[in-house]
């Protein structure tokens, strides 16, 4: 066991992936000498060379578009989008090309492209640096979407993501980059498409992913009266709905938590789907706690915008008030 930050765990995972397969490339803005603005690719260019760790022109559509071409040539590019809010210039390449080309080819083409996106707020940043764009991608068939929440998962999930032949949007909770935990570098991780019960409980189920898993665990620990189960969704698409439904049926109550705006956010899918799956077991409607239906606010207001322990527990109270 080694103690690693989440950022370093990703770095280690990428390193292993690159060692295991010479076709794995890392590309993006400032990923080389600088090692990325969050240092997730630190040292990789030094060790694997400029041909495998590519500082690209400043153009996100170009990053994903050329990554598709590289994948067509047999490479496995891992692209870094510098911040969540800068993925949109690449939206067309992701949505119309990356997600659809395997089908277009009737399966002749596989596009093992990983798109790493540091996401979420809470770091006091300026506009576009704190967003949670997952719903744009969970609604895009052909993509897998995953979110890691802790160092051990980060380490295993990034390696799985690189190994899998589908295009994957890989969300990294930027405000948790410096959180440390023990990581067993040789143990196999939970398969990429599985959810994990991270805390068992009987009275209510909290569903979260990425940065909000920690928040929910804190809320569960702080809550005195009720026994709270917390599930880390991990894979947003495909969704491991069986694990979630089992829990919700057992507790009869559920709150979904994410940072993205609630309106048509990923929580809507969780709520709608689990309501259908667990209707007769529900004591109350599934409630959603998330960002407001506004652009991410200037950072002096982000503590209001982001779900925190209090807002999660308030929702727990409300779900019991039914």
């Amino acid at each position, binding site marked *: 066991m080694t103690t690693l930050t989440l950022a370093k765990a990703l770095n280690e995972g990428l390193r292993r992936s690159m060692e295991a397969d010479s076709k794995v490339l890392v590309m993006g803005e400032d990923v080389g000498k600088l090692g990325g603005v969050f240092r997730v690719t630190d040292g990789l260019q030094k060790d694997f060379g400029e041909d495998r760790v590519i500082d690209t*022109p400043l153009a996100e559509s*170009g990053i994903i578009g050329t990554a*598709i071409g590289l994948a067509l040539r047999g490479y496995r590019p891992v692209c870094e989008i510098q911040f969540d809010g800068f993925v949109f210039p690449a939206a067309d390449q992701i949505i119309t090309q990356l997600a659809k080309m395997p089908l277009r080819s*009737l399966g*002749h083409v596989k596009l093992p492209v990983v798109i790493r996106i540091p996401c979420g707020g809470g770091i006091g940043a300026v506009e576009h640096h704190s967003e949670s764009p997952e719903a744009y991608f969970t609604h895009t068939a052909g993509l897998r979407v995953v979110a890691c929440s802790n160092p051990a998962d980060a380490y295993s999930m990034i390696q799985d993501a690189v190994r899998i032949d589908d295009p994957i949007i890989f969300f990294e909770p930027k405000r948790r980059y410096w959180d440390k935990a023990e990581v067993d570098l040789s143990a196999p991780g939970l398969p990429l498409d599985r959810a994990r019960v991270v805390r068992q409980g009987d009275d209510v189920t909290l569903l979260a992913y990425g940065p909000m898993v920690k928040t929910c665990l804190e809320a569960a620990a702080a809550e005195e009266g009720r026994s709270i189960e917390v599930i880390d969704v991990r894979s947003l698409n495909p969704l491991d709905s069986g694990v979630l439904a089992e829990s919700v049926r057992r507790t009869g109550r559920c709150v979904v938590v994410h940072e993205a705006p609630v309106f048509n956010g990923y929580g809507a899918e969780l709520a709608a789907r689990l309501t259908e799956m667990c209707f007769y077991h529900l004591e109350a409607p599934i409630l959603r706690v998330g960002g407001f239906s506004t652009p991410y606010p200037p950072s002096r207001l982000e503590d209001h915008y982001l779900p925190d322990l209090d807002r999660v527990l308030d929702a727990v109270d409300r779900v019991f008030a039914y």
Partner: protein
Amino acid sequence: MTASPELVQLLTPEGERVEHPDYDIELTAEEVRSLYRDLVLVRRVDLEAVSLQRQGELGIWASLLGQEAAQIGSGRAMAETDMAFPTYREHGVAWCRGVDPLYLLGLFRGVHNGGWDPYEHNFGLYTIVIGAQTLHAVGYAMGVQRDGAETATIVYFGDGATSQGDVNESFIWASVTNAPVVFFCQNNQWAISEPLEKQTRIPLYKRASGFGFPGVRVDGNDVFACLAVTRKALADARAGQGPTLVEAFTYRMGAHTTSDDPTRYRMAAELEAWKLKDPIERVKAYLFKNQLADQAFFDKVDEEADQLGRDTRRRCLELPDPEPVAIFENVYSGPHATLEEERDQYASYLAGFAE
């Protein structure tokens, strides 16, 4: 468009061979006859497809009429291991790469979205979103560089496409990485109803100068010139000399697609003027004048074309509709829980009707 210092032409509309200092090409009679045959056959497939669409057998068709020389010239310039990335109109290039026309018909009929194996033919899937494929081509070429292979990549796009951000980004990436890629722009003067002036105020081949690599304009209705210019550009790419932009100056003789009505936006006179520059007629004239082919040859090619047309039609009509379950296939490379659930639900829903 007449021959000019800035336009590479090796065969005039009248079928006269002309010399160009930078692009010489020696073609045997056999080679010229073979190019002629290609031109005639792809035009025939195209005509058949238009007629199939008129009869409701295809949803839509994008005709290459008038652009045969640009496509056959460039397509035949490729080495077997070279890779091509097309738009949705490169039926002539597809032909050169050995893609069965049935795939193209299947796409426009709505049976699939392309479906051939790009690796088998070194020919990418048709790309409908304007310009997106240019970046794929550069990425592929970057892969070639890493493989240390002697392989060139060629990517096709139209005059309208030059306005897209992606196309310009691809110029940047190719230039900065010195990627072995040829940008082949078929300037057919129109992007649906919009004439060239809506996309640029200078000749398109000059765009390359702003990115630091060579651009050349070639008579796109001259199959010899298209062959020569593309051959050189591909050779340069393979030799590590980086990208070239080729502007094939040509004309869309037909409608944008079968859904389009060009009489709403362009003059008949323009079309008539371009008819005189037909890419096939000039090769035929050249073959005749130089006694490189006799009437029997032309008859044979026509017959072959008719046969191909008939076959194509028949096989198109025989194309089976896909099974509903195909909706769920090939979306992911392996099992996907949500999708399987939907598939099973839909299967049992359908089964309900059968009962």
